[in-house]
């Protein structure tokens, strides 16, 4: 493989990492509170707001039903508004985040629901308010699940960022399509796939290790 190709590969890897990290950060920052809201406002939640819950739930479902490739194109006006252009890494972050926010919100919601109701009751019985419930019970107790779910979200984002190549985002997927597919350079395709496998594996190992460290419940220990 030529040195320009290696440089191109390195460049693409960085672009993928930037897109994944930025969209991952945004989906975490927005998705986690959203997931918390979905649990809290549900029937029997500690901040029961049925109407709000139905609305948020519907919004999340709607966003999750749209195929990513369509979302990518559909939000171009919004992307232009936010980053001033509809192509490139920065432009891809907008649709990637929009797809990942509801995805992570559902995963976070599941993790919060896993928290034993007895713990919530116990802290309410101690006179704890909503804020105490959130930062002393829900978040610490759900943390291993929130972390594992975040790893899954990042892996999904790496996959989705390849599709974002369709709008000229750059990144590994873009490289694979332009060189590997359109120019029949099979070795580029193979290298890109190998890099992606390594990237996802490394991410999963780190995510699992963090989750195991965070988990004090004894479930994961032998």
């Amino acid at each position: 493989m030529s040195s320009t190709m290696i440089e191109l590969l390195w460049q693409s890897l960085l672009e993928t990492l930037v897109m994944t990290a930025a969209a991952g950060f945004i989906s975490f920052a927005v998705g986690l509170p959203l997931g918390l809201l979905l649990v809290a406002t549900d029937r029997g939640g500690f901040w029961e707001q049925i109407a709000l819950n139905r609305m948020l739930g519907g919004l999340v479902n709607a966003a999750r039903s749209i195929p990513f490739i369509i979302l990518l194109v559909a939000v171009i006006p919004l992307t232009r508004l936010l980053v001033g252009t509809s192509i490139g890494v920065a432009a891809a972050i907008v649709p990637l985040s929009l797809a990942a926010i509801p995805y992570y919100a559902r995963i976070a919601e599941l993790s919060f629901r896993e928290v034993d109701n007895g713990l919530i009751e116990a802290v309410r019985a101690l006179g704890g308010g909503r804020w105490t419930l959130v930062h002393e019970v829900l978040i610490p107790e759900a943390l291993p699940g929130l972390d594992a779910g975040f790893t899954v979200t990042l892996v999904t984002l790496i996959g989705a960022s390849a599709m974002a190549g369709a709008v000229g985002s750059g990144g590994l997927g873009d490289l694979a399509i332009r060189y590997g597919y359109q120019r029949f350079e099979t070795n580029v395709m193979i290298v890109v796939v190998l890099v992606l496998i390594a990237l996802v594996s490394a991410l999963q190992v780190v995510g699992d290790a963090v989750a195991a460290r965070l988990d004090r419940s004894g479930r994961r220990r032998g």
Partner: protein
Amino acid sequence: MLGLIGRSGAGKSTLIRCLNGLERPDQGSVEVDGREITKLNERELQPLRRRIGMIFQHFNLLSAKTVVDNVALPLKIEGATRAAQRLRVAELLDLVGLADKANAYPAQLSGGQKQRVGIARALAARPALLLSDEATSALDPETTDVILQLLRNINKRLGLTILIITHEMGVVRAIADRVAVLDNGRIVEEGPVWRVFAAPRHATTLSLLRAYQPALPAALAARVRPGVGRSTVVKLLVVGEQARAPLLAELALATGARATLLHGGVDYVQDTAIGALFVGLDASDASTFAGAIEFLRQRASEAEVLGHVVDDD
């Protein structure tokens, strides 16, 4: 120390949850410390709940926090300073005997140790009332005794009112002063524990107490037939002072009736002696027998003719 007992589904847990406002009754009122609490909103209930400690069947400790942080949580909620929290937590861990486990996580503790952490946490904010919701139901008998002793000590040393909910009569018997029996959401019987054990009045109490009720051994019971005979079975119940008297000797002296002891024993509930004796009396001489029964009815709380024993074929 009040014990509240009932079968599952009788409404025990619902009742206890109404006391700290975790559940709201559909009707009626709940007064705690002279305050009507059913009308209070969540925020107004919070200071009240801090005055009421609660322990649970499944301990409900936060798995992500160490023992110290679990016990400190009520103090943190109260807004106590870190130094004050540390001091109070050390004091509580000494009280429950877990000072060496301070930095362990709940998953590393045994059931009994978890409940001791639960008790320490419940006491942290110096509550005026401690609610115990089936606190020993998930523990083995030995650990149950240790936890009950701890609660008894706390009750005596801190002068704290403790309300114990349980479906086990043994728990009530071991530590409660008074007991209320709950059936279908209603209190059907209430009184000092020794009184309820000695003479249960309601059918639910009777069935809950079945295991503690003196009964003839099965082999003997199978040979009892209705009516009187050469060996008529009389069940006697003697409570308190009555249990100290040489009852059968006095019976022989006063009436000439000679009783055979078939089965029985004296038990102590809250230091009150409760004796249940099954004696055999010869009813061949009707007047001696009548005199004996008359005597026994005067000297025992209860004297009941159960039938007579027939010999094996």
